[in-house]
């Protein structure tokens, strides 16, 4: 990267900067003339000298002459304004493009950092550098040349004008500039140093915040909040001191500038006044000089601010860029280039004298040499810290050895681009990362190396104009809207891909889990109608099957004409699934439409009554329990916090009667009945007569629901798929009955059976694959994340598979079977398995044992499983 900001600017925006300079130069004659014009207006047109004027042979009187000159003045104002506007916009665009380029370069560099470097830099430092720290640089880059040129030129124009009017006054105007030019850089220097220090301290601060968030559990568990806060205060104090010092100095500089600027008019009034009185200077000229001087202070100030900004930006650029150039980074070619001739890794993996030393000179690997034949499956065992895990990262070219070489199929892997190593080698580490996207996207990531096909111009930012902007900013031109899936590496076409992923889910033992996720998940709106129809088919089939098995009583189906006693009153009224918050349970009582429906069928009064009774029961049952009692969360309709309020409400209701209560209080009672599930709560408060009226309300609710709120609710309908509900709920189309022993389990089994017999399992798995994995895969368990990562590399069929303790977090009973399935899947390809437990190495034909950074044993399981070997020792320890 360019070592200074001016080199960066020059290299990437030479043409634009020159264009800006030319444009700025063009604007000066107009500026000069607009300064000169007032003199002519005052001295000739207003004072009425040399009239009538002769212009292009026309005789013009005083008033039209004045109007003409004023008109020209107005035109000049417009032209000057136009120049300014165009230059500013152009400059802004240039600045934004350069900022975009800078950020892109920095991010690309982060992706090229050598992996060990990430132990030394923290997210908390890197992120603000790319996001906020470089932000002001964009503005500066736009201004870098054109602003000093424009403002300097303006200044010069005005000065020339002043000198032309009167050299003495001109000299007076700039008499104090040398003082400023001497003092200010000196004062600025200290400010610059403070600025550097501020940047460093703020980085440390964000690092500290990031650390606290990552380690928040430890802070809670060790009650170290106070220490953390005190620590934080120290840093804030440091920043405060620095910033305050900067402000003091900055404002002193400003004060000095302002003072000097104010001082100059003193010369004009005194010297200029004398000159006018003596008749050596016209009155008009003095007015024009005074006007010009007013204009003079603006560019001068701008120049001084520019000087400060230039210093700020220079420091920031230096400080950012030096962080982004660690030794051992990949080259840009390694990051982006495709190999000139295809490289095949279909050959032996050979290590020759591989050594690895860390920054402190500690030897991690030493003299490691061995060869693994193509297609061989090898396990590497060894004690923790023996180097087996590091060796795996070296073989995958994630870490470069400090000595020796790794060749695959006779090619040294060190200089290869990632388009070879990241495709032909499949590496999974012990804590693989899952990105916040769908499970499917996370698996497909394994085959998303480069775009295929043309960009779709309707997708942002792939329209031709947006692409032109990206190109002008030196950004990636790979269209995000193209097809990124490398079908060739997967060995399947679009249709085959689904089957292939399903197959891989079985290999890594993720199928049942994705199926379960799919049952709880919902179809996407754009899913094919056919899928929805088949799920509706399963709904019918489930009902029939439950009848056959005599289990029909375990599910109470939704029926538009019947009250469902296993559903809440709210569900019975809405008869649908709320979409969004609009008809969420807690909002119903205060929703005007719901209230109007209740009013219409005369249920409001009853609901308030029931609410009062429910509240009374809850108060009776729960009043003696401590507020933190688990029953509140599990059983109560009223939280422990709200209980006293309801006690007061009940007393008030007793005193004034329900009818006499405030509308607001009634609403509080009204909230409660919606939550009642008659079969579960058994409070006997929803009589059959009331059920009939709720059914009536259901009808009214549905018929009169305003069009604009239709989208807030997906109605239950026996022959329609409910997109707002999960696949399971759609198949069930009803509620599992309360009070039937083991109902949930039994129904679950029948659902699974129906899904299977209807051939829906694959579809449910598809739904599961489309489920979001959460931030950093947080919705998946650690074991599931590991399985996703393994499926991810198997998808692209790499020649060499490196599993670096990749199955360590899986249930210990599942490790061996999953490993054997992976090895079967990788038949014919080289597998290097780093065994976290030596026993797992048993099925492998060849086992290496690493200890102290060296290979100390090499042989078959039986040959190593002998008295006195380290391998035996490892086995015995387990």
């Amino acid at each position, binding site marked *: 990267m360019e070592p200074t900001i001016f080199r960066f600017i020059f290299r990437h925006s030479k043409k634009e900067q020159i264009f800006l300079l030319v444009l700025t130069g063009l604007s000066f004659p107009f500026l000069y003339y607009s300064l000169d014009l007032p003199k002519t207006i005052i001295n000739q047109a207003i004072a009425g000298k040399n009239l009538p004027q002769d212009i292009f042979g026309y005789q013009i009187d005083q008033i039209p002459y004045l109007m003409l000159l004023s008109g020209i003045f107005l035109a000049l104002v417009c032209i000057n304004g136009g120049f300014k506007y165009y230059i500013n916009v152009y400059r802004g665009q240039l600045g934004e493009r350069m900022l975009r380029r800078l950020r892109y370069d920095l991010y690309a560099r982060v992706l090229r950092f050598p992996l060990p470097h990430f132990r030394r830099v923290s997210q908390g430092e890197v992120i603000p550098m790319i996001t906020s720290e470089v932000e002001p640089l964009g503005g500066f880059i736009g201004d870098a040349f054109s602003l000093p040129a424009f403002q300097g030129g303006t200044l010069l124009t005005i000065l020339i004008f002043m000198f032309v009017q009167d050299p003495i006054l001109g000299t007076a105007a700039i008499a104090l500039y040398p003082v400023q030019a001497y003092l200010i850089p000196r004062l600025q220097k200290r400010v610059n140093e403070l600025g550097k220090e501020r940047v460093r301290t703020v980085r440390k601060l964000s690092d500290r915040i990031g650390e606290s968030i990552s380690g928040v559990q430890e802070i809670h568990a060790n009650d170290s909040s106070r220490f953390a806060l005190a620590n934080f205060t120290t840093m804030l104090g440091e920043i405060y001191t620095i910033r305050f010092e900067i402000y003091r100095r900055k404002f002193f500089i400003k004060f000095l500038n302002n003072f000097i600027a104010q001082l100059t008019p003193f010369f004009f009034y005194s010297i200029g006044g004398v000159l006018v009185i003596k008749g050596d200077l016209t009155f008009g000229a003095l007015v024009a000089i005074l006007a010009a001087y007013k204009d003079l202070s603006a560019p001068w100030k701008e120049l001084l601010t520019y000087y400060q900004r230039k210093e700020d930006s220079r420091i920031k650029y230096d400080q950012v860029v030096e962080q982004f150039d660690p030794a051992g980074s990949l080259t840009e070619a390694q990051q982006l280039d495709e190999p000139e001739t295809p490289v095949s890794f279909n050959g032996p993996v050979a290590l020759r004298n591989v050594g690895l030393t860390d920054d402190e000179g500690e030897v991690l690997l030493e003299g490691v040499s061995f060869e693994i034949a193509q297609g061989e499956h090898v396990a590497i065992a060894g004690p923790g810290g023996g180097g087996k895990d590091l060796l795996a990262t070296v073989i995958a070219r994630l870490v470069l050895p400090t000595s020796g070489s790794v060749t695959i199929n006779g090619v040294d892997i060190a200089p290869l681009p990632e388009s070879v190593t990241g495709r032909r080698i499949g590496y999974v580490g012990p804590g693989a990362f899952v990105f916040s996207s769908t499970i499917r996207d996370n698996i497909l990531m394994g085959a998303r190396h480069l775009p295929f096909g043309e960009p779709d111009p309707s997708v942002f930012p792939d329209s031709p104009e947006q692409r032109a902007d990206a190109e002008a900013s030196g950004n990636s031109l790979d269209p995000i809207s193209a097809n990124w899936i490398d079908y060739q590496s997967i060995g399947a076409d679009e249709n085959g891909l689904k089957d292939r992923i399903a197959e891989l889910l079985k290999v890594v033992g993720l199928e049942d889990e994705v199926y379960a996720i799919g049952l709880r998940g919902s179809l996407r709106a754009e899913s094919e109608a056919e899928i929805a129809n088949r799920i509706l088919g399963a709904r019918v089939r489930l009902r029939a099957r439950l009848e056959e098995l005599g289990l029909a009583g375990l599910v109470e189906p939704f029926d538009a004409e019947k009250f469902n006693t296993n559903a809440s009153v709210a569900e019975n009224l809405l008869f649908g699934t709320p979409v969004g918050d609009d008809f969420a349970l807690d909002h119903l009582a205060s929703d005007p439409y719901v209230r109007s429906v209740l009013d219409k069928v005369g249920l409001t009064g009853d609901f308030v009554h029931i609410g009062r009774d429910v509240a009374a029961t809850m108060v009776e049952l729960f009043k003696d329990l401590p507020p933190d009692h688990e029953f509140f969360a599990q059983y109560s309709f009223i939280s422990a916090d709200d209980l006293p309020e309801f006690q007061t409400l009940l007393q008030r209701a007793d005193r004034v009667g329900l009818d006499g209560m405030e509308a607001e209080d009634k609403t509080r009672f009204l909230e409660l009945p919606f939550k009642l599930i008659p079969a579960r709560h058994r409070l006997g408060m929803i009589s059959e007569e009331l059920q009939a009226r709720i059914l009536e309300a259901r009808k009214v609710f549905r018929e009169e629901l305003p069009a604009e709120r239709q989208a807030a609710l997906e109605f239950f309908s026996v022959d329609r798929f409910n997109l707002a509900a999960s696949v399971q709920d759609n198949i069930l189309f009803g509620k599992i009955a309360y*009070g039937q022993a083991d109902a949930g389990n039994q129904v679950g089994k029948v659902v699974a059976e129906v899904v299977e017999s209807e051939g829906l399992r694959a579809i449910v798995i598809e739904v599961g694959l489309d489920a979001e994995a959460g931030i950093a895969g947080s919705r998946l368990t650690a074991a599931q994340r590991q399985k996703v990562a393994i499926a991810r590399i198997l998808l692209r069929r790499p020649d060499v598979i490196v599993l670096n303790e990749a199955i360590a977090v899986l249930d210990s009973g599942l490790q061996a079977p999953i490993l054997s399935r992976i090895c079967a899947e990788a038949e014919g390809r080289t597998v290097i398995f780093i065994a976290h437990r030596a026993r797992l190495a048993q099925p492998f034909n060849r086992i290496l044992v690493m200890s102290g950074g060296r290979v100390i044993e090499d042989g078959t399981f039986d040959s190593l499983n002998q008295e006195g070997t380290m391998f035996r020792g490892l086995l015995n320890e387990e």
Partner: protein
Amino acid sequence: MSLNEEVELLKNIPIFAKIEPSKLKLLAFTSERLNYADGQVLFNQGDSGDAAYIIIDGTASVLIDTDDGKIEVAQLSKGDIVGEIAILCDVPRTATVQAKQSLTTLKIAKEAFFRLVTDFPQIAVEIMRELAARLEQTNMRLRAALSDKDG
């Protein structure tokens, strides 16, 4: 059956007889009422205990695994409480309980049961009394069996 009816029923069970109705109501409210079909199992011998059951309606048989298969050692009917030993002593279920024809129980989860016992010592006393009575009964049978053997 509504909550109030369940409370009436609980009142008639000796160990709950002296408890205030409002506490019984809380017990009923926080418990799950479950229906079992003929032959359906409440729990199996050897399972870990997570709940006690009060028979509300119907009958159930208590079965013990022996070398000759399961044998019925007792029958439970309305008002009986079963399954409390596994909860109190934290031991696996000592017998299998199975519904005979249709059965309705109130299932009291372990936590709710403990809560009840700690909050209302009189329940603990009643349970002790019940257990002591059962022990005494067992002892009597044992004595009878031994004297039969001697005789």
